[in-house]
């Protein structure tokens, strides 16, 4: 972020504490910098501010000036007098102004908050015990913090539909809806799929989809995230787990090179949901629906858990020996993946060097990007493969050169990491000509014919880092333990490396980072645990700057070809 110039700052007083914020900052955000919470429902930092929930009402005053002359009006102490507005103002849509004063704790503000809380609750069902939002519900939280604690409402509550299907992944409970309109604005402003709206009036207003349409875009589940109450629920997560039991692990989405920051919610070794983690430089507070389903690979039926040697199921030791033996042979080619972490790519590259690889390829997965949070490159870490030296140039779409090398008899052994070579353009005949050592997480046509298999872990079961399209180094942590007997990738790679003489043990991630720091200038002085939560932008080596990367524009990313807007 560029540094804000001093004259672009405005200084205001919130609860008698001074704070300077960039021009245009609203009072909620300014107060947040002082650790003062101004409760709000409809306001969301990444959406427009409609100012309709009225929860963020505060008292506002401005320095007084003479109407005629424009001269400041002073009080007896020589300070400029403050003209307090007779009515409360909404903090969300009030921009900080020089000399502005805000009261967030005054009796009037407290009364406003109590009033709005009471109004929000009178027609809200008291079904917290069966509501998925309970535990992360703004209505619960603010009712406790800002409400009166009792109800004066003796009338009948409004009745509305309890189970409306808004789309394939989202279900709506209209009674719980507090009509904040966040979901509507998300669809209009972010997803560009304006399908939601209100029908009917007043307290009977009801959220609905346009007739004949449904909330089916690939970002629909963000509406569930931003819903401050339990009105919108995810069909996948609904009624599965109380949120307070979930362990939240920071992770990175592997769907594409955008590198969406995520949080993996798990309990007792089982993942229940993936939600976006805010990163204003990468994904704001959003993520795709498809990215949220990736946790299903952990317990997928085609998960690779069995070791194999000489084409037969084997013990881990036998499989490892078989792999080590293959690496001693000549005419071996390596095929890596953009799905591997930086650490894995580094070790894989090292392994290829030690084994005297004939060639090293990377399978590319280029599809169309969606312009938002899924880029054209559907792997998270091609940049990492370039930085670690696993590959020298961008991978070509098909592995035809490798195929020709096999046909020409130049390659007799293949070490394949995670990729399916048949899908990548090789033929069955070609693969039958070579011995294959396969490392990976899931079965595919290549693993099916591999002589040796060493199963590895998914992104949810290990630590590591990816370099996204911005050359931002981001790390992920293990959310759940891997399947029984399946080794950590680094452990497996290190064991293979140790088949060669005089090699250190590189199974620990810190050790790998020390080694990378020594060998690669771009990682100098970095350690895994020092990667900040928001990631670290790397200095891009000269030769990697102008490669014809596949990505087009996505949120917060402008390809080198297109000029990034100023600021």
């Amino acid at each position, binding site marked *: 972020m560029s540094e804000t110039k001093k004259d672009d700052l405005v200084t205001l007083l919130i609860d008698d504490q001074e704070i300077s914020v960039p021009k245009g900052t609203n009072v909620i955000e300014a107060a947040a910098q002082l650790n003062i919470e101004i409760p709000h429902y409809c306001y969301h930092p990444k959406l427009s501010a409609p100012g309709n929930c009225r929860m963020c009402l505060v008292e506002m005053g401005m320095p007084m000036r003479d109407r005629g002359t424009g001269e400041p009006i002073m009080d007896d102490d020589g300070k400029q007098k403050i003209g307090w507005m007779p009515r409360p103002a909404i903090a969300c849509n009030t921009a900080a102004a020089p000399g502005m004063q805000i009261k967030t704790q005054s009796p009037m503000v407290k009364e406003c908050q109590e009033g709005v809380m009471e109004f929000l609750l009178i027609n809200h069902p008291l079904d917290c015990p069966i509501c998925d939002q309970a535990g992360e519900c703004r209505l619960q939280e603010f009712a406790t913090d800002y409400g009166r604690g009792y109800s004066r409402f003796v*009338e009948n509550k409004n009745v509305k539909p309890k189970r409306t299907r808004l789309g394939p992944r989202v279900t709506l409970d209209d009674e719980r809806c507090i009509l904040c309109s966040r979901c509507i604005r998300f669809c209009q402003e972010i997803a560009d799929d304006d399908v939601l709206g209100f029908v009917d009036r007043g307290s009977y207003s009801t959220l609905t989809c346009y007739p004949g349409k449904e909330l089916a875009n690939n970002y629909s589940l963000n509406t569930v995230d931003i819903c401050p109450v339990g009105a919108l629920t995810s069909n996948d997560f609904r009624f599965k787990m109380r949120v307070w039991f979930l362990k939240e692990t920071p992770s990175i989405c592997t769907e594409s090179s955008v590198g969406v920051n995520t949080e993996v919610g798990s309990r007792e070794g089982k993942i229940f949901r993936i939600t976006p983690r805010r990163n204003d430089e990468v994904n704001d507070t959003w993520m795709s629906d498809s990215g949220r389903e990736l946790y299903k690979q952990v317990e997928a039926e085609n998960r690779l858990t069995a070791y194999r040697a000489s084409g037969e199921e084997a013990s881990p030791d036998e499989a490892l020996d078989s792999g080590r033996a293959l690496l001693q042979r000549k005419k071996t080619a390596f095929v890596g993946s953009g799905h591997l972490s930086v650490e894995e790519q580094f070790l894989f590259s090292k392994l290829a060097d030690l084994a005297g690889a004939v060639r090293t390829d990377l399978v590319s997965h280029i599809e169309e990007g969606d312009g938002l949070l899924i880029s054209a490159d559907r792997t998270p870490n091609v940049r990492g493969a370039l930085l670690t030296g696993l590959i020298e140039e961008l991978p070509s779409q098909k592995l035809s050169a490798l195929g020709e090398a096999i046909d020409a008899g130049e390659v007799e052994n293949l070490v394949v990491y995670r990729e399916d070579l048949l899908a990548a353009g090789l033929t069955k005949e070609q693969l039958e000509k070579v011995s294959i050592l396969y490392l990976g997480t899931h079965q595919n046509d290549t693993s099916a014919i591999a002589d040796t298999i060493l199963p590895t872990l998914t992104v949810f079961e290990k630590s590591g880092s990816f370099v996204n399209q911005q050359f931002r180094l981001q790390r992920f942590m293990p959310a759940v333990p891997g399947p029984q007997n399946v080794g950590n990738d680094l452990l497996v790679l290190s064991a293979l490396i140790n088949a060669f003489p005089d090699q250190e043990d590189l199974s620990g991630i810190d050790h790998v980072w020390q080694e990378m720091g020594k060998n690669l200038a771009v990682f100098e002085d970095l350690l895994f645990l020092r990667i900040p939560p928001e990631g670290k932008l790397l200095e891009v080596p000269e030769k990697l700057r102008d490669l014809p990367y596949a990505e087009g524009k996505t949120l917060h990313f402008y390809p080198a070809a297109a000029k990034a807007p100023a600021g």
Partner: protein
Amino acid sequence: MATTPQEKRIILKNIDQDGYTRDIDCYLANGGYEVLKQTVTKDPADLCKEIETSGLRGRGGAGFPCGMKWKFLDRKSGKPIYLVCNADESEPGTFKDRQIIHKDPHQLIEGMMCSAFAIQAACAYIYIRGEFPEGAKILEEAIEEARKKNFVGKNICGTKYSCEIYVHRGAGAYICGEETGLIESLEGKRAYPRIKPPFFPAVLGLYQCPTAVNNVETLCNVKHVFDMGGEEYAKIGKPGNTGTRILCVSGHVKKPGYYEFEVGSLTLGQLIYDVCGGLPEGRTLKAVIPGGSSAKVLRADERYTGKTKSGEEFDWSLEDIPLDFDSLMAAGSMAGSGGVIVMDDTTDMVEALGNINAFYAHESCGQCTPCREGSLWMKKITTRMLEGQPRLEDVDLLKSVADQIAGRTICAFGEACAWPTQSFVLKFRDEFIAKAEKQIKESSPSREPALAETE
């Protein structure tokens, strides 16, 4: 129809006169469009000055000075300026604009074209409420007539100025009368009022362009200001309360209807007894809502004391209150839309409030929490009170709910729905309490043993 002697008819001059029809020929025969012909030869800036000089205040309800409204129009942006006529007359008790539209549509069109020229509007709209299908048809026909005579459309009266008027029908929502809600509706959206700031119509109005939104009666008045000159116009009425005002009287009077008076020229008592023929036989005056249902109710057996804007002390009975913007405000209510609702001693005030609350609960747009939930809550309370389960604490609860709405919403609907409740329970607290006490007494034989048993 004979005009009442107290009246001074400017806007209603021709309306209801024998032989006066709404077609353009009749309008022209009565001097119609002469003012427009003169107006288009003048300097628009001077015309806006005339309006300022006239002191003309908006007739929609808020009484905001029209000249000031036009002055705020952002002329520097280079964006087109729009003129919107607010014909969404939906305040209960108000029925003046409909008369103008139905009986003298060309007066409105001439007023609009004069106004459009004065502010150099690129285009003008009439937003007419959905419940006025006939009015919309009449306006369409009248605009077509005027277009044929070159008073509307391209090169008005042979000048370089062109302006089209479009009629847009609402879909039946009270909130469309709120100017920013109206603009949203005109843009084809839900009529959710906009936040001010930044969306002041004069700067970011229709299609984010500067827009003047004026009431039907106000726009008709513009024509007369241009006709007689701002200074002459300002001589009618009282300083700060200039011109005439159409009052719509409904409720318990012998001759309800619409009447036009010099502002402040008569008192509420004169209106009720002299103009409207008094109350039905044997009845006594109980209360008056002087400016449409959202205005605060005034009680008959009460003294109204205080200081006027100009500093004069006053001590009025209800009948003494002069009917102008400032006097009614000083008495604790407002002139509003000019809908005077008269209630005699047969009126059950709880029922009256229940009726008003039902209306506002139905019409709240639902955008802001306090108004959305509060208006329905108040309705539910009054409905329950009327259906036989009033409680002693209801009167305070009603007031408290209303207090939690007013001043805390995006638009003035919050006040509009809170003021009736606030004023009814303030002025007629005794009636609300009595209702509850009566109910408790009547139902006590069955209740008391039950209570005794639990003890």
